[in-house]
């Protein structure tokens, strides 16, 4: 048993953190996060050059990482700096393209931006409910339907799309963004997403039976979001602690008030619990416990990130209600992570389902 990061991951985290501190000041972060194109194409290439995208893919797929702890390292560091770049879409695409045996080099080098279009308005989280369909047209497959809230969809050049082949099995398709009708928009917590309208859009089938690959990609995405939240919680906690130590009211630092002290202690404990469950999930990627532990992590992180965000605002008392004060943007990100790739209730249902199964139920090893 060992809770120390490997030397490689420690170096990656340090390099990335240094880059983000230098290149994504909160002012720059906010201007990138909240104005078109909702990301910084130049810095995206620089991040790729640092090897951040390579860290998301396994060596066999042309990457230099791809394990649970690699992904967690990258996203925890991104989260701590509130980086608004569309890494989530990239990660989902990496997993799907790798499962389909496609060449990852253009994605990993930062040359071509990919996003993965999975969720739909009536199927926000569960791929089993996907309704988009592909049919054979005159010149090959064409796609019909709407993909909703595609993360990074407004800045992507190519899309990996999950749809049913002739209304049957879930398959994966690659589409040029210019061939689809895309309504991009900024997100309330920064970055971009898009509605993707498919209306006879030409598409290349890249994987005919994609159910397992989709679940695997969504698991990895959820793990990444957990790690991102842990990073953001750490920064939020440090901000709040600093505020409690320095802000004075009624003639004393507000951190000397016992009611706030006790709440701050409880927050600190819950952040450690969120970190722990994320470590557990990262360590279980690739095992038969992957999906279940990821759901546990996404549930607990969702609960705690909301608690941290609300206490961050409340205990700052006014100042964190303002756009100008960085804590407000951390609070938004922490809350909105729960809306991505399955919220606390969605993942709790998946944990519950195993208990409710007939028979002897899961062993909690």
């Amino acid at each position, binding site marked *: 048993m060992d809770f120390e990061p490997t030397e490689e991951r420690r170096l990656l985290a340090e390099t990335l953190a240094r880059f983000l501190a230098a290149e994504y000041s909160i002012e720059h972060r906010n201007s990138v996060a909240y104005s078109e194109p909702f990301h910084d194409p130049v810095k995206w290439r620089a991040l790729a050059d640092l090897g951040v995208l390579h860290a998301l893919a396994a060596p066999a797929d042309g990457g230099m990482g791809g394990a649970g702890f690699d992904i967690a390292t990258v996203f925890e560091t991104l989260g701590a700096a509130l980086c608004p770049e569309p890494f989530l879409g990239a990660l989902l695409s990496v997993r799907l393209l790798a499962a389909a045996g496609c060449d990852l080099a253009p994605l990993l080098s930062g040359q071509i931006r990919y996003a993965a279009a999975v969720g739909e308005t009536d199927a*926000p*989280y569960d791929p089993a409910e996907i309704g988009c369909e592909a049919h054979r047209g005159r010149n090959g497959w064409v796609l019909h339907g709407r993909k909703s809230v595609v993360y990074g969809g407004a800045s992507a050049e190519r899309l990996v799309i999950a749809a049913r082949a002739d209304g049957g099995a879930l398959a994966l398709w690659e589409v040029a963004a210019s061939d689809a009708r895309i309504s991009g928009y900024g*997100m*309330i917590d920064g970055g971009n*997403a898009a509605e993707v309208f498919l209306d006879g859009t030409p598409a290349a089938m890249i994987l005919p039976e994609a159910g397992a690959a989709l679940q695997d990609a969504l698991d990895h995405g959820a793990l990444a979001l957990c790690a991102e939240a842990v990073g953001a919680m750490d920064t939020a906690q440090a901000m709040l602690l600093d505020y409690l130590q320095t802000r004075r009211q009624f003639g004393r630092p507000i951190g000397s008030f016992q009611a706030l002290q006790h709440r701050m202690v409880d927050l600190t404990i819950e952040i450690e619990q969120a970190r722990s469950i994320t470590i557990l999930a990262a360590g279980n990627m690739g095992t038969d416990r992957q999906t279940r532990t990821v759901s546990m992590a996404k549930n607990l992180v969702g609960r705690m990130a909301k608690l941290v965000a*609300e206490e961050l605002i*409340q205990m700052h008392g*006014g100042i964190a209600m*303002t756009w100008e004060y960085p804590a407000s943007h951390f*609070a938004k990100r922490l809350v909105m992570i729960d809306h991505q790739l399955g919220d606390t209730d969605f993942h709790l249902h998946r944990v519950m389902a195993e208990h409710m199964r007939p028979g002897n139920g899961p062993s909690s090893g």
Partner: protein
Amino acid sequence: MDLTYSPEERAFQVEVRTFLAEQLPADLSEKVRTGAELTKSDHDRWHAALNAKGWLATTWPRGFGGPGWTPVQRHIFEEECCRAFAPRIVPFGLHMLGPVLIEFGTPDQQQAYLPRILSGADWWCQGYSEPGAGSDLASLKTRAVRDGDSYVVNGQKTWTTLGQYANRIFCLVRTSAEGKPQQGISFLLVDLDTPGIEMRPIRLIEGGCEVNEVFFTDVRVPVTNLVGAENQGWTIAKFLLTHERTNIAGLGFSIQAFEQLRSFARRRRANGKRLVDDPLFAARLSEIEIDLEAMKITNLRMLAEARKTGAPGPESSMLKIKGTQIRQVLNDLARRALGPAAVPFPSEVLGGNAALVPPDQAMNAARYFNNRKLSIFGGSNEIQRNILAKAKLGL
């Protein structure tokens, strides 16, 4: 014990409903229902309609132009207005300054200002908080120094809601540095056209600009604009804090939010079923419904108590705490109900066939973030707990 309204109260309820059905402009209620921003002229239009009926200054005595309602009537009026998605009455002139002038103002001040509040000629805003004095109001630093027939005001106010629409501001200012900090505070009326005043918007967490900072540099204010005696400001501030609280529980907003949420959860389909058929969501919806049903009775009980004693006690702090908790949980559930569809930035909300959700749900995430203010502004819930611990529990 009798939980039902008296025949007179029921008749009044019908009268309010009829008035709202006839006089509330549809475009205004649609704006309120969808969470769209109301312009100054929207507010002015609604105030004028209420004023024409004599129902604008709901907390003022009859002699000053109020309707002379009982607390239960006010409660009925507010609940019906919320159910009809009427704009809220902007409180600064009507619920805050008005009662202060009636209690502490000179006849000249009353005659000068009260009619202009009713007519909409003046839009007042509030200058209480300062960057260094939020919850700890007594430590405020904005100074007013007497110079002949004027005070010269220097300092900075913040969290001034809808100051961008206002032509006047009422302020707490420091007129003396002696004694306890509370003792050197005065209550001053300031014309925002006076030279030396600058108002800057503060952008809030969700992106909107409803509050402002106000900077005072050598602003000369006639001494006749002092309300009450010099250094009596703390008494007036406390009076205002307990008397503005006709609807401190925000119950009407909660009823509105609950009905919108319940109705949406029955229509929303996700992952193969209606949202309301997810037992985890249904449980949250039901628990907050129960808390809200209890809160309605708690509110009525405390209104009845206030009617007996003539003034709201520390119980108003209880209504504030629980009322804001319930509103915030409802905002939280409304945000969660949308799933991924909650993520678009408010200004990016998509219309037409690109719409993600019905228009009345599109602001759910923004409203959730904006309404985190409810437990902070107007005396944070922590301050309310301090007050209750001391005044009600004797701790």
